[in-house]
C-alpha cells in the first residue's frame, strides 16, 4: 500500500535580491525503501528543477547530503521515508555552515580549514624509501586507527553542537576526533604537547560542553565523546606537567 508523502523543503537564494526564505510543499507517492535522495531527485525532475541540494555517492559513505530532517541533522541518502509515520517531512539546510542555496551548505571550506587547523596529516621527520618493505604496525593498532579514520566529514556533529553555535571557531567533535586519530597512529610522531598547541584551548578540546548530540547523531557511530574525553585527559595532564 503506497501512501502520499508531504515534503516541505526550505528555499532561499542568498545571492538574489528578491529571494526570501520560505518553505515549498511537494506531494509524492511513496515507494518501498524510498529515501530522501529518491524524493528529492523526483522533485527536481518532475516538480521543481530549481531546488538545490547535494548528493554524490547516494550510499551513505561520502557525507555530501547531510541536512536537517524534521529538525535532526541526518544523511538524506540513508534516511527512509517509512520512518516518518505521518508522512510529513520537513527539510532544512544545516546550521553552522555557510548557506549556498535551499538545502545546500558549504561544508568543503569548513572542513579544509579544520584540516589545516589540526594539521590533519602524518608528521614525522623520516624520508620513506618506498622500494623497501613497509614499517611494521601491530594489526590491532592498525585496526584501532581505522576505527578513528572512518569520519566522512558530513558535518552532522558540527551542526549538532551547541558549543559551535555559541563559539563560531569551535573545532567540533570531528576536529577533535582527528587529533585523537593522529595521536593514536604510530606513523605520526607528534607529542601530546604538539596537540596541545593545536587544540588545547576553549576553541578546541576545553570548549566541549559534553551535551553528546554529536555522538547521538553521528551516522558512522564514531566514539566522539570518549575520544574528546581522552584528548582532554591527555592535554590536561600535559598542562599540569
Amino acid at each position, binding site marked *: 500500500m503506497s501512501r502520499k508523502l508531504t515534503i516541505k523543503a526550505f528555499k532561499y*537564494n542568498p*545571492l*538574489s535580491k528578491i529571494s526570501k526564505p520560505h518553505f515549498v510543499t511537494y506531494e509524492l507517492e511513496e515507494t518501498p*525503501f524510498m*529515501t530522501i535522495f529518491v524524493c528529492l531527485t523526483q522533485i*527536481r*525532475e*518532475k516538480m521543481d*528543477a*530549481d*531546488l538545490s541540494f*547535494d*548528493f*554524490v*555517492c*547516494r*550510499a*551513505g*559513505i*561520502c*557525507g*555530501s547530503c547531510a541536512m536537517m530532517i524534521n529538525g535532526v541533522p541526518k544523511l538524506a541518502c*540513508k534516511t*527512509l521515508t517509512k520512518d516518518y509515520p505521518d508522512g510529513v517531512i520537513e527539510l532544512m539546510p544545516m546550521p553552522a555552515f555557510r548557506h*549556498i*542555496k535551499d538545502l545546500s551548505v*558549504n561544508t*568543503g*571550506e569548513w572542513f*579544509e580549514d579544520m*584540516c*589545516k587547523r589540526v*594539521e*590533519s*596529516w*602524518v608528521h614525522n621527520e*623520516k624520508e*620513506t624509501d*618506498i*622500494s*623497501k*618493505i*613497509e*614499517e*611494521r*604496525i*601491530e*594489526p590491532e593498532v*592498525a*585496526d584501532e*586507527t*581505522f576505527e578513528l*579514520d*572512518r569520519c*566522512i*566529514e558530513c558535518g552532522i556533529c558540527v551542526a549538532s553542537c551547541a558549543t559551535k553555535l555559541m563559539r563560531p571557531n569551535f573545532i567540533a567533535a570531528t576536529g577533535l576526533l582527528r587529533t585523537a586519530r*593522529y595521536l593514536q*597512529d604510530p*606513523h*605520526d610522531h607528534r607529542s601530546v604537547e604538539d596537540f596541545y598547541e593545536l587544540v588545547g584551548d576553549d576553541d578546541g578540546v576545553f570548549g566541549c560542553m559534553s551535551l553528546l548530540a554529536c555522538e547521538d547523531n553521528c551516522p558512522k557511530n564514531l566514539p566522539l565523546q570518549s575520544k574528546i574525553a581522552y584528548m582532554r585527559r591527555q592535554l590536561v595532564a600535559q598542562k599540569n606537567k
Partner: protein
Amino acid sequence: MNIQYSDALVIGGGLAGLRAAIEVAKSGQSVTLLSICPVKRSHSAAVQGGMQASLGNGAKGEGDNEDLHFADTVKGSDWGCDQEVARMFAQTAPKAVRELAAWGVPWTRVKKGERTVVINAQKTTIKERDEAHGLINARDFGGTKKWRTCFIADATGHCMLYGVANEAIKHQVKIIDRMEAVRIIHDGKKCLGVIARDLTNGQLIAYVARGTMIATGGYGRIYKQTTNAVICEGTGAAIALETGLCRLSNMEAVQFHPTPIVPSGILLTEGCRGDGGILRDVDGYRFMPDYEPEKKELASRDVVSRRMMEHIRKGKGVKSPYGDHLWLDISILGRAHVEKNLRDVQDICKTFNGIDPADEGPKGWAPVLPMQHYSMGGIRTKPTGESQWLDGLFACGEAACWDMHGFNRLGGNSCAETVVAGMIVGDYFADYCKNNGEIIDTNIVKDFLSKEYQYLKSLTDKEGKHNVFEIKNRMKEIMWDKVAIFRTGEGLKEAVDELEKLYKDAQDVKVHCKELDCANPELEEAYRVPRMLKIALCVAYGALLRTESRGAHYREDYPKRDDLNWMKRTLTYWVEGETLPRVEYADLDIMKMEMPPAFRGYGAKGNIIENPLSEKRQAEVDAIREKMEAEGKSRHEIQHALMPYELQPKYKALNQRIGVDYE
C-alpha cells in the same frame, strides 16, 4: 574578466587528481585543483574492496611479484591493454601502497599464526608466517593468481582518499571545490587551461596554466543502472572530446559489476566473493561452478556478469518488482567476519534493503544484479599521460585511456591505477609544466570566456520544446537496454539512431530558472546532458562498429574474440557541428608484446579467431626466455629483453619483499 594563473591545473579531486597534484606541488610549482564537489566526497571514496599490489606478505600472496600482477592484468584486459603501461603500473603499485602506509593509511595488517578463511565455500585454515607479522595484508579478488588486493575492511577508498587529500592540503595544493570545468581553452595545438563555472554563484573563471590535467573519473551515469556516484557523468572526458582534437579511446569497453544491490544500485564489493561469498539462484542453488568450474564466482567481472545474466535468461532469476535478480550469500563467512571486514556492506544491506547479510539462510541473502560499474575507455594518452593530439593536456585515472585495463579491468586495479598513475603521470606532468613556460595570449582566453557566457545565456534564453530531464532519462534507458552486457548489431544501430535524435533534441530545451549568477541545477543539466549524449554516442557507435567480443564488450552476433581483425584500439573524435562521432583505429602490435594473445583461463575455450602473429611472437618470447634462463639471467633482465619500457628511475627501482629481498 577573471583569470587565475598557476603552473599546473588539475581538474578532478579524486585519488588520481589529488595524487598527481601532490607530485606537482613537491616539484616546487604552484598547482590549482578544481573539483565539482569537496574533494573528500569524490567517487574514489566508494572503493570498498581494495587495491592490487604485489607485496606478497600474506600466506596466500607468497611468491607474488610484478610479473604475476602484469600477467593477470594483461589476461584480464583480454589482450586489449598497452603492455608497456601494464608493466609501468605493476612495478609502481607496491610503492604506491607503501607510500600511502607512510602517509598513515591504516592498511589491514598480517597477524602471525593460524586463522580461518572461507575458500570455495569451505572453511579452511591458513597460517600466516611469523616474518610477515605487522606487514600489509591482502585479500583475494577475481582473476588473480595470488591474494593481492590490499585493503582496509571495506572502506579502502575512503581511507586512501583521506590520506591523499590530507597530504595534498599539507603540500598546499590550492583546492577549489564546487568548481566545474566547462570548456578547454586551446589554440588548436596547445592546451592553455579551462573555463570553469563556480557552482555556488554561477561565475565564469578562466584558469590558465602551463599544463592541464583531467582526472574527472568515469561516465557511469549515462546508464540507468550503475554503481557510480551521481557526479560520474563523463563531462571531463566530454570537454576533451569537444576540443575536436583529443581522441577518446575504447569507449565501448564498459565494465559491469556482478553484485550491486537491487534496486538502489549501490555496490557490494567484490571482496564479498573474494572473502568467500557465493552466488545463488531462485532455488538457492550455487550455479557459478557449473559455468566456470575453475574460478567459479572469482572469474573476471565480465565473465561472472555474463554468466549471471545467462542464468537469469534460463529462468533461474528471482522475480521482483524491479525485474529478475540473483542472490549474494555472505552469511557463510560467519557473523564475526561480516561485522569486521564487510561492515559497510552490512550497513548498506540493512539500510537500503532491511536485510542483515550476516543472518544465515535465505533471510540474509542480498538481491544482486550486474550493473554498469567502470569505464575502461577515456581520453587517449601516451604512457606519459599526455594527449597525443593536444600538447599540455594530460589525463589520468578513470577519465583516461592510459591504457592498462584494455577491454576488462580486474577488481582492485582501478583503485590502484588512480594512485599509481597519479604518481607516474603526475611526475611527467610536473616535468612538462616546469619545461614549458609560454607567454599566453590573453585574447584567446578572453574569447573563450565570452563565448562560454554567450552559450550559457543562450541556454536560459531559449524557449525550447524539450525537457532536459526527460532526455537524460531516455538516454539512460537506451544505454541500459541496448548498449549493456549483451549487445547486438541491430540493437546498437537503434541505440545510435535514437541517441543522435536525443542529441539534436538536447539543443532545444527550456530552462525555467533564468538566473545565471547562482546555483542553477536545471541550467547545469542543460549544459551537461548534451555532453553526456556525446559520450553515450561514442560508446554506442564504437560498440556498433566493433564486430567481435573482447572483455566486457560482448556481441551476441560476433561471440568470438577476433585477434585477426580487431587487435586495435578504437579512437573517437568529434567534429564541431556534427551529430555523430568519427572513428579511427590504432593497431596493437603483437610482435612487440611481452605476452602475445592467448586463452584467458576463464570463459569459454576456443572462442578466439587467432592471429598467426601470436604464435610467431610466442616462439620468439620462449626462445629468448629459454636462452637467458640457461645463462642464469634474472627475471628482471629477461623482462627487459622481452619488452623494454620506460619509467622514472624512482618508480622503476626493484621492490623489496620478505623472503626474496629484491629478487
